[in-house]
Structure formats: structure tokens, C-alpha cells
């Protein structure tokens, strides 16, 4: 299931609630992989007070649905849940939840990574940060997901 929300959400509660609701998972799920993206209070060396997440509503849903469908087919997932926040957000807010359920762990690990990376590169979201002096700046590029000095 795909959900885009302007409201704050608790990813742990959402994940648990969804898992309980999906009765087809019972007795079949051997692995669940859960990724949660959270807003930081710094970026590119400066303090960030808040952020507006803009999106292209209909295209966001379409691209996200395609990404999840690709993952479900490629890894034969039992189920997937993606929740993404839009609108005004603040440090420590949950921005994205990607949860996938599969029979074995490999599919869960790989598929959740695939969904998250595809989301970052294909789904039309844009971030505009509010800095400490209340000026705004568009985020033009994200990191590749690792710290600069981290071994991959």
C-alpha cells in the first residue's frame, strides 16, 4: 500500500497496524525489513529549522506504485507498505516509511533498499529547507546515502 500524507505519522505504529491487518501474512512471513527516514536538523554544514516537501500529486502516486510493483514482482514479496510525508516538516519528523514482508530475509533486505533508492531517484518530491536565519533554499542533490568518509 502507498500512502502520501500531510500529517505527522508514527512509522512504528503504522507498520504494526498494517502487519496485523494483512491476514495473508500470518504463518507465511519469515522476514520484514523496515526503513524509516527522519528529518535532520542539519544539512550541508548548516542548521536547518524546517523543510517543505513539495510533490507532484498524481505522478507521485503513479511512480511510487510502479516502484513498489517492480519490487513485489522482482523479489516475490508478500506485501509492502510505503508512507511518505509531504508539506511542512520539522527535525525528528518521520519523512518516509518503507516496510516489506517476504518469506526469507534476502528479499526483504534487498527490496527495501531498492524501493528507497528508486523513490529517491524517480518519485517527484522536492525539498525546500528553512535555515536558521529563515532564508530558504532548494535541495538540489542528495548524498548517495553514505557519509563522505564511510567505507561502502
Amino acid at each position: 500500500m502507498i500512502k502520501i500524507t500531510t500529517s505527522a505519522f508514527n512509522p512504528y505504529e503504522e507498520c504494526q497496524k498494517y502487519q496485523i491487518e494483512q491476514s495473508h501474512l500470518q504463518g507465511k512471513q519469515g522476514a520484514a525489513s523496515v526503513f524509516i527516514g527522519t528529518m535532520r536538523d542539519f544539512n550541508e554544514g548548516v542548521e536547518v529549522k524546517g523543510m517543505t516537501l513539495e510533490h507532484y500529486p498524481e505522478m507521485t502516486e503513479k511512480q511510487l506504485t510502479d516502484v513498489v510493483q517492480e519490487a513485489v514482482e522482482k523479489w516475490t514479496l508478500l506485501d509492502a507498505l510505503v508512507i511518505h510525508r509531504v508539506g511542512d516538516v520539522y527535525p525528528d519528523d518521520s519523512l518516509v516509511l518503507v516496510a516489506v514482508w517476504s518469506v526469507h530475509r534476502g528479499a526483504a533486505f534487498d527490496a527495501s533498499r531498492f524501493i528507497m533508492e528508486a523513490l529517491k531517484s524517480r518519485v517527484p518530491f522536492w525539498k525546500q529547507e528553512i535555515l536558521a536565519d529563515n532564508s530558504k533554499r532548494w535541495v538540489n542533490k542528495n548524498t548517495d546515502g553514505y557519509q563522505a568518509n564511510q567505507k561502502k
Partner: protein
Amino acid sequence: MSIKVRYFASLKELIGREQDECEYQPNMTAMSVWEKSVKTQSMPNNILAAINMEYVDLQALVVDGDEVAFFPPVTGGLQ
């Protein structure tokens, strides 16, 4: 019928509006929709285009009634 043209994020700010209506003409491409709609602004580098919510090349043909969108790379970057 006509083409609905939409702009997002920093591009929307650059152009100063979020959408246009563009009169359809035969053999129109995404690029020619831009030229006919935006007029005063040449296209910045890296702008992405979508027709009816699917990414397309700027030379892709549009059909009367299509929705054409232009926007900067999505956060994370479609390289």
C-alpha cells in the same frame, strides 16, 4: 482541447506560475510545449519532463489533452 502545462519546485518559482494552458498543434513535442508556454525563459539545464505522469524525452510527441510537466531533478537526483 489543449495541453495542460505544469511547473514544480524551483522551476515554478523561476517562471513565476505553476501552470499554463497551451494550444495543441500537430507534431508538438514536450520541448515545443515549453517554448510556446514559457516564452521568456530558456530551459535551465537538467530539467525533466513528464507527459501524463511518465518521464519522457524532450523530443517526445504530445497528444491533444495531455498534461505536460516540467521540473528540476527530484531530490536525490535522476542522473
